């Protein structure tokens, strides 16, 4: 795995930082931006068997022509889990798997498809993301999950 830049925000009153900025400028300049008024629903909460509420913050990756949409949502017990839905087109519609990813928890998955064929998921969020209730991949405090979701 080669080096990647990490986007950080050390002060919430200031923009996030990453470098070098010239890469951003050159990337934007090379794009032909076409506006469209179209938007379409590609995954809905009732279509996710294990989820109960708060479906949000997805990311998508592709492998061998199949697209995988990763998303957080609360399960039937009110615990945030991360699930996956599949489609053969990037604009869906995506079909959710029957259950969330075993062992997955918290919110905001971001997927990195590395050039060596490995895929990495980065996730997490305190309070609203319930990460404070977990220790060593074990839910240690259901009470915290229920009572201290300050950002929701």
């Amino acid at each position, binding site marked *: 795995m080669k080096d990647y830049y990490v986007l950080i925000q050390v002060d919430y009153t200031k923009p996030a930082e*990453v470098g070098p900025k010239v890469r951003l400028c050159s990337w934007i300049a090379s*794009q032909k931006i076409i506006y469209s008024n179209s938007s379409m629903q590609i995954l809905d909460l009732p279509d996710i068997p294990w989820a109960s509420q708060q479906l949000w913050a997805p990311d998508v990756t592709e492998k061998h022509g199949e697209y995988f949409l990763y998303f957080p949502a609360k399960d039937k017990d009110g615990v945030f889990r991360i699930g996956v839905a599949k489609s053969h087109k990037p604009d869906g519609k995506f079909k959710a798997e029957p259950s969330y990813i075993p062992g997955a928890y918290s919110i905001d998955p971001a997927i990195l498809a590395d050039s060596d064929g490995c895929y990495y998921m980065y996730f997490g969020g305190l309070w609203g993301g319930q990460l404070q209730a977990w220790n060593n991949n074990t839910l240690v405090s259901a009470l915290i999950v229920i009572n201290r979701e300050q950002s929701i």
Partner: protein
Amino acid sequence: MFVTDSTLFKMSVAVYDPPLISTFHQCDPAAHVWKHDPNTVYVYGSHDVNSTKNPPVVSLDPRIYIGES
């Protein structure tokens, strides 16, 4: 978060005024340029149901949408 095509696109919103996308109002976007369609940016947002109805910040009826720009 790592700098991928999606991160760069999200950052562009902060750099350019007006925003690159103004046709739907959502949050937590992920954006990708797929190999089979290199001239299209696929933006995956969430939360808001219908931008024409001035939805709340956190929708009670969440869906995930895709918008092309």
